[in-house]
């Protein structure tokens, strides 16, 4: 029997970390993720975990401490947001390239500037090419579940990559909702022991980590790293299937909601998917069909699967809670449309909305505007503007 509880998204992530009981947690507080290490440090103080908690002086040091710990053979975790993630930047790449399956709770917040503590995805979207696996979470339940699956995915011998679990700052990180927790012993059995192939404290088999790697070998290492990310897709599905058998909660590369008979679809990450589903339900009650596609796995990007899933719609709106400042749409839009083109899926009309920047509230009537535009495009077959901003004062 699972445990019915109510807690915030941050506490859910911290509880997952408590149940995982990692060897090392190194973290520096930053809004809105502060509560994650805060809750966790109370578990350390209360002696309910065996973790070495490293209270570092910056996020650069937090990620560096995680790299050192994980290279030594420990299971290391951290949590951060926004500029904390930005300060980790160079070390994120080193963690991934050194093949260290660190797990991070990333509580999405807009990246300064202007200075703003509220939610959008500009922090984790900036790290999308750092070599980390990225899982996105609609609510506290998904944030908890993704955290429990993260080590199994990252530590798998075919993968060996760090994993970032994202949820929306304040919107879900601070909202208290119902949740189903697993019992500690079930989590322990599911997550298992960390058994690295090579680690620094293995005195029988000494290794050097992070040596100079010039043009003679660097490309081979990067190619191998790229393969690990390709392999991750299958592993994510396998781990998710095992998790489904344990909990009854099904996770795939992306969620497809209300797809039957729908001509139009909204592709959207994290908490706004919840709003979009609510709007889809309202339309359904009026006999109109709107599908919602919610990517859970953004890295690796499910190119083939998402292109095939989107091929049946006439009009699609891809929602980005981060601008790329490339004058050509947000990161989700460019990845989805390039996936569709590569797969030869050319018939749907696709538009982009940048929305919710800096924590701008996204309400059901905002999503309705998107739906109405999609119905218009679906009816006329004409797109007047591909790149759009939703909810900004004109």
């Amino acid at each position, binding site marked *: 029997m699972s445990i019915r509880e109510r807690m915030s998204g941050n506490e859910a992530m911290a509880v997952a970390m408590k149940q995982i009981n990692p060897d090392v947690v190194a973290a520096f507080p930053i809004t809105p993720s502060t509560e994650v290490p805060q809750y966790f440090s109370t578990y350390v103080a209360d002696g309910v975990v065996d973790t070495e908690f490293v209270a570092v002086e910056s996020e650069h040091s937090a990620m560096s401490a995680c790299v050192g710990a994980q290279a030594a053979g420990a299971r290391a975790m951290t949590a951060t947001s926004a500029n904390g993630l930005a300060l980790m930047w160079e070390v994120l790449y080193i963690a991934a390239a050194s093949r260290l399956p660190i797990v991070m709770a990333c509580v999405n917040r807009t990246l300064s500037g202007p200075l703003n503590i509220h939610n959008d995805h500009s922090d984790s979207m900036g790290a999308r090419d750092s070599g980390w696996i990225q899982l996105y979470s609609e609510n506290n339940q998904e944030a908890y579940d993704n955290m429990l699956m993260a080590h199994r995915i990252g530590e798998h011998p075919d993968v060996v990559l760090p994993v970032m679990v994202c949820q929306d700052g304040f919107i879900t990180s601070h909202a208290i909702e119902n949740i189903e927790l697993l019992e500690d012993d079930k989590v322990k059995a599911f997550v298992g022991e960390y058994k690295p192939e090579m680690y620094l404290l293995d005195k029988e088999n000494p290794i050097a*980590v992070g*040596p100079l790697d010039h043009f003679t070998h660097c490309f*081979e*290492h990067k190619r191998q790293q790229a*393969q690990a990310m390709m392999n991750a897709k299958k592993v994510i599905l396998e781990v998710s299937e095992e998790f489904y058998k344990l909990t009854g909660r099904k996770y795939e590369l992306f969620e497809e909601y209300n797809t039957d008979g729908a001509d139009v679809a909204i592709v959207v990450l994290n908490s706004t998917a919840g709003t979009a589903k609510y709007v889809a339900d309202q339309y359904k009650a009026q006999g109109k069909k709107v599908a919602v596609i919610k990517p859970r796995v953004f890295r690796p990007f499910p190119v083939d699967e998402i292109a095939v899933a989107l091929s049946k719609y006439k009009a699609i709106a891809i929602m980005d809670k981060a601008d790329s400042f490339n004058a050509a749409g947000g990161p989700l839009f460019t990845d989805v449309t390039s996936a569709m083109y590569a797969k030869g899926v050319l018939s749907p009309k696709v538009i982009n909305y940048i929305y919710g920047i800096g924590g701008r509230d996204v309400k059901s009537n905002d999503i309705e505007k998107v739906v109405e535009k999609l119905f218009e495009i679906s009816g006329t077959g004409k797109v007047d503007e591909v790149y759009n901003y939703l909810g900004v004062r004109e």
Partner: protein
Amino acid sequence: MSKKELKDVAIDVNWKDITPGGAIPYAGNAHLYKTGDWRSMKPVWIEEKCKQCLLCYPVCPDTSILVNEEGKRVDFDYDHCKGCGVCVKVCPFKAIDFVEEGK
């Protein structure tokens, strides 16, 4: 991937066999990485001027001055000498010439 299959810094290792993350699982393999082709200036040992004082030996940053079993220096290890010229400067007997590479 088992330990046995791990490859070290072999120059022809492919991406499937290369050690994950650039880790090096064996000690003492730096000699496999030949740095001699970085050299633009080349030290030349003039054996007849050399008094075997060995002042050059400890200053070489790359252990490219080879010493035989009798404790006598012999010719340079040009596979690894980067041509920094410290040995040229330190030699009290002008027994090391310093010439442009390729001349």
